[in-house]
């Protein structure tokens, strides 16, 4: 008799891989559907001569530029921020910076604390042990003792070096009496000499330097029996009855196949997941499966980013070490009654790039050479990560004008920067300049809103207790279904002002654990 799959997981990125591993470990039969293929070591740009060119083309962060067969089109004409992702085995962790702070306890309770937006139906403490578990498997480097965050266990790997540039900045923070701390990162800080061969833009990193889920969670999940069907694009969830999924259809080599399973789990990120649910519309679910609240695809959050770069005095070669896994500050993280905005921001230090990416950040024209000479190897940058509050008017929808390589609709993004986010960013830019000046830096340029910076995708199928204003319950199960789950950043109720991946993965492990408990 054919053994039916327990969990069909769509996507093998940060969340899908974590979920697949945990369920496989519990003895469940897991099959992952992934639209991309495995990326082999020698396909990484580091092994190519023109590594920086690779980062502009086939390794571009932007799927619209790469236009690979396994990418899908995203129409950004109504958004000042463009979503970025990678679509292969390992998902966007093949491509990310791996700066991995956690949410704070307050991030889950902004309604209670600040009377804005909504609380999550779960708390930091529901996720805490899964953050710890994930840090072990992703191999987090860092150092405990950060006064801005709750205590956490010893980090599995030692902290990344700050480098001389980081030390200059750390001392400027100290002089201002502002918080800073070496970043938690899913990068390999040990065996430095053998494994780390990169500078500037992280697209240039050696394969072994960043922890991507194809190399940890998935490798282990496969050993435990999980199967991965690659180059297979999920096109539609098929229902057995109004509330129960029978399985999912996927397209591989132009052929559509139905795979049946007891549960369907979406881990396709906060753009890919609503896309599948919207594409699965039926007569009884006209607006897409799981959309009785009308909120599917809505409340899209990015972290709006500003960026400021300054030039440190001297003729330096500040290229050593990872690009943006150095240090961060959460001095202005929480709502402050004396300010005219809610919530706050994290500052993340960013290092110099290689020549092409350095030049691209500068103005062209007569001053170009002068600016390049002054800045190359001498700069320090700051990414300002603002908390984005959810708004129903920020949403994704299907785009039938732009189809993917299998003829499925692309995605259209509708997003406006809120007044609150703008105020956070403006304040943060002033503070960042204050810091850079304290460090003796001359301001080179400032970008009030980064355009190609939609790397954090959140909120399009938020969790909640009330089915009228959320898409899933607090265990990631669609309110409208008995066996369809979401485990990725779509579930986020609010966005905090930190990079989201540890929280996404902790959520995936938490959903998995609750399913295991239920089964037993």
């Amino acid at each position, binding site marked *: 008799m054919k053994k039916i799959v327990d969990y069909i997981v769509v996507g093998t990125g940060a969340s899908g891989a974590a979920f697949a591993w945990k369920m496989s470990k519990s003895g469940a039969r897991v099959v992952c559907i992934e639209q991309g293929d495995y990326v082999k070591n020698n396909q990484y740009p580091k092994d190519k001569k023109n590594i920086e060119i690779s980062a502009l083309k086939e390794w571009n962060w932007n799927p619209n530029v790469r*236009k690979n067969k396994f990418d899908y089109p995203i129409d950004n004409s109504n958004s000042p921020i463009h979503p970025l992702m990678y679509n292969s085995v390992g998902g966007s962790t093949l491509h990310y910076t791996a700066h991995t702070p956690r949410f704070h*306890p307050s991030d*889950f309770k902004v309604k209670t604390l600040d009377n804005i937006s909504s609380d999550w139906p779960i708390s930091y403490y529901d996720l805490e042990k899964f953050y710890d578990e994930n840090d072990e498997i992703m191999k987090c480097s860092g150092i405990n003792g950060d006064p801005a965050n709750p205590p956490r266990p010893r980090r599995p790997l030692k902290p990344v070096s700050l480098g001389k540039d980081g030390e200059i900045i750390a001392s400027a923070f100290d002089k201002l009496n502002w918080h800073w701390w070496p970043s938690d990162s899913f990068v390999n800080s040990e065996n430095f000499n053998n494994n780390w*061969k990169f500078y500037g833009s992280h697209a240039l990193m050696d394969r072994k330097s960043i922890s991507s889920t194809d190399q940890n969670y998935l490798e282990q999940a496969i050993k435990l029996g999980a199967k991965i069907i690659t180059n297979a694009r999920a096109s539609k969830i098929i229902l057995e009855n109004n509330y129960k999924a029978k399985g999912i259809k996927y397209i591989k080599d132009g052929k559509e196949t139905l795979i049946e399973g007891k549960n369907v789990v979406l881990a396709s990120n906060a753009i890919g997941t609503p896309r599948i649910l919207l594409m699965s519309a039926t007569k009884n679910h006209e607006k897409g499966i799981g959309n009785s609240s009308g909120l599917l695809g809505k409340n899209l959050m990015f972290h709006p980013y500003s960026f400021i770069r300054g030039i440190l005095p001297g003729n330096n070669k500040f290229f050593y070490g990872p690009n943006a896994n150095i240090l961060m500050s959460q001095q202005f993280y929480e709502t402050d009654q004396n300010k005219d905005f809610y919530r706050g921001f994290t500052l993340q230090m960013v290092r110099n790039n290689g020549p*092409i990416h350095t030049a691209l950040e500068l103005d062209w024209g007569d001053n170009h050479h002068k600016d390049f000479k002054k800045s190359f190897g001498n700069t320090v940058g700051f990414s300002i990560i603002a908390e984005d509050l959810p708004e129903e008017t920020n949403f994704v929808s299907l785009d039938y004008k732009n189809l993917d390589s299998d003829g499925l609709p692309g995605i259209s993004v509708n997003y406006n920067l809120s007044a609150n986010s703008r105020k956070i960013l403006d304040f943060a830019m002033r503070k960042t300049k204050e810091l850079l000046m304290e460090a003796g830096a001359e301001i080179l340029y400032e970008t009030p809103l980064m355009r190609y910076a939609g790397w954090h995708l959140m909120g399009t199928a938020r969790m909640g207790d009330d089915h009228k204003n959320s898409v899933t319950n607090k265990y990631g199960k669609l309110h409208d279904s008995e066996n369809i789950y979401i485990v990725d950043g779509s579930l986020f109720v609010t966005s905090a002002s930190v990079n989201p991946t540890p929280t996404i993965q902790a959520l995936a492990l938490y959903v998995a654990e609750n399913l295991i408990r239920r089964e037993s």
Partner: protein
Amino acid sequence: MRSKEFFNNYDKRIIKEIMNLMIPENEEIAAAGDKGLIGKLEKLFFDSELHINSIKRVLNAINLNTDARLSGSFFSVSKEKKIEILKTLEKNMLDDFHILKECIFGTYYSDNEVIKKIGWDNDFINKTKFGEFTLKPNILDKVKKISPFWRKI
């Protein structure tokens, strides 16, 4: 897809002119266009339809520009006017212009002569000893004194 099908000699002259305006000559090296880098740009980027199309759209916009048309062509306007036209396009055609800029800067800064001039060695990091790069424990002395300030709930 080869560029020849898409760009005629006139187009290429405009691209060369834009390259010169974006990266002019300096004491040692000729401007990006005069340096003869257009062939390299084609090799690096014109295997991509997206790059070709973005550049085409920018060139079309230049050709349609009223000032350029009234003067006869983009080549007949002053350098200041050319820069003004390009700056306007940079604002109005953000994504296409960004791609064009990536092509030009990518080509120039991967040229061997330029790399040598700026003292860059793609592999220099691999030749460096990393022993000195560890977190110095006393660097945390001051920040460690801050009392925990995360908001409890």
